[in-house]
């Protein structure tokens, strides 16, 4: 695994504290969406289809920090939209770093070099750029529906790595992905010097333009088994090895929709990052008044049956690792051996 020890320690002690307190439902990562505006329109994305006056809105830094404090999760992921379009993104990151939150700033990297050159960000162990990369040039440019984006992202990654920033990649795979091409892609990302990679199957957003290429569960298992069965020693993943085994079909988890709660310009999103069933005014209200039993595979909810996305299952894997000796030992063994 590629996660720094300090981050591992922070997350481990946080989860253990929740366990000792007997807290059944606790957040692990806050998904903070400060805006929906984006400079791309990806085929598999259902996040940005709003009227112009909604896309022009963004959360203020104060609103973001209030959400972070309410939630209390040790990690904050900032997706969007494209967060680098936020006019106060530098101030927001600085405030989160000052709070010692581990921040994953998700970006398509089109503006990354410009922002880094302008000194908007400073390297920190708390800040990681999580660059959206859906494959090699052909696959990535197709996924983001624009030519040339892969090359610009690669250039930005090189620049950020050279300047001492933590850089990870975030990859969404869809039906039709070629295992051998994905393996080559992982090699290419490690060659760039990224700290680690994150990978997940796409979710079938009802509002996404492309409704044909979302992976169903069995297909996802086959694809991830083909990709990850014999992982190269040099590959580093910035996620739980148990989650990767889940993707391969080697173990099963139930969804933890509260594990990565989402806050955006509409409020606290029910029930998860992917489904939009309404909004709560406070984090407390979200946790107390959401009918959690209506979600996850066991619930029978048809929208949850094929979902294997990390926003629902990464927290399940982490909770399992700290919820039993078996889970803990499995995590340590897979981490040390590099075998999935």
């Amino acid at each position, binding site marked *: 695994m590629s996660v720094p020890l300090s981050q591992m320690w922070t997350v481990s002690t946080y989860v253990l504290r929740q366990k000792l307190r007997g807290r059944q439902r606790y957040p692990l990562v806050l998904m903070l969406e400060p805006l929906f505006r984006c400079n791309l329109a990806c085929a598999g994305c*259902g996040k940005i289809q709003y009227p112009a*006056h909604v*896309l022009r809105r963004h959360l203020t830094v104060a609103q973001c920090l209030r959400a972070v404090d309410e939630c209390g999760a040790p990690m904050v992921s900032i997706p969007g939209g494209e967060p680098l379009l936020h006019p106060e993104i530098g101030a927001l990151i600085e405030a989160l770093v000052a709070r010692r939150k581990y921040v994953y700033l998700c970006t398509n990297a089109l503006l990354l070099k410009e922002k880094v050159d302008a000194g908007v960000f400073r390297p920190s162990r708390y800040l990681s750029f999580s660059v959206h990369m859906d494959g090699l040039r052909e696959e990535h440019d197709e996924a983001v529906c624009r030519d040339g984006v892969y090359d610009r992202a690669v250039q930005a990654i090189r620049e950020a790595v050279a300047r001492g920033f933590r850089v990870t990649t975030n990859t969404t795979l869809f039906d039709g992905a070629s295992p051998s091409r994905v393996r080559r892609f992982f090699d290419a990302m490690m060659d760039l010097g990224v700290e680690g990679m994150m990978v997940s199957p796409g979710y079938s957003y009802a509002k996404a333009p492309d409704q044909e290429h979302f992976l169903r569960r069995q297909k996802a298992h086959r694809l991830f088994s083909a990709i990850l069965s014999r992982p190269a020693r040099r590959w580093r993943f910035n996620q739980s090895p148990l989650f990767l085994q889940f993707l391969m079909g080697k173990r099963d988890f139930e969804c933890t929709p509260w594990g990565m709660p989402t806050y955006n310009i509409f409020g606290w999103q029910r029930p998860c990052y992917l489904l939009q069933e309404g909004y709560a005014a406070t984090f407390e209200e979200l946790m107390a008044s959401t009918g959690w039993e209506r979600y996850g595979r066991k619930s029978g909810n048809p929208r949850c049956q094929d979902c294997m996305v990390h926003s629902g299952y990464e927290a399940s894997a982490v909770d399992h690792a700290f919820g039993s000796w078996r889970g803990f030992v499995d995590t340590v063994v897979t981490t040390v051996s590099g075998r999935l």
Partner: protein
Amino acid sequence: VSGEPARDGAPDASEPLEALVERAFDYRGDVTVVTIDGEELVGFLANRNGDVQDPFVQLLESGRPDPRTLRYAEIRTIRFTGNDPAAGNRHATWLGRRAEVDRSAGGPSGA
């Protein structure tokens, strides 16, 4: 984000208000909320809660920073008047353009 023109903005008169609100909440374009006293409010229906004692919707109006909260009891009807940015098919358009580029270049491009 461009979108498809709105469909007929007038709802079916027999549709219960609760169902109409649900459709409006799922709609990604602006709607027009007509109040009992005849006021017409245009905006994006960002939230609703029909499970509370006094069900309400929250409407984001262009030019107003905070959402306007309206009780179901204040709403006469909702019309779907804005374009729906979630409609349309940009991906198919892009794939077609991509295929044309590949054909003219003599084959698909690779990384």
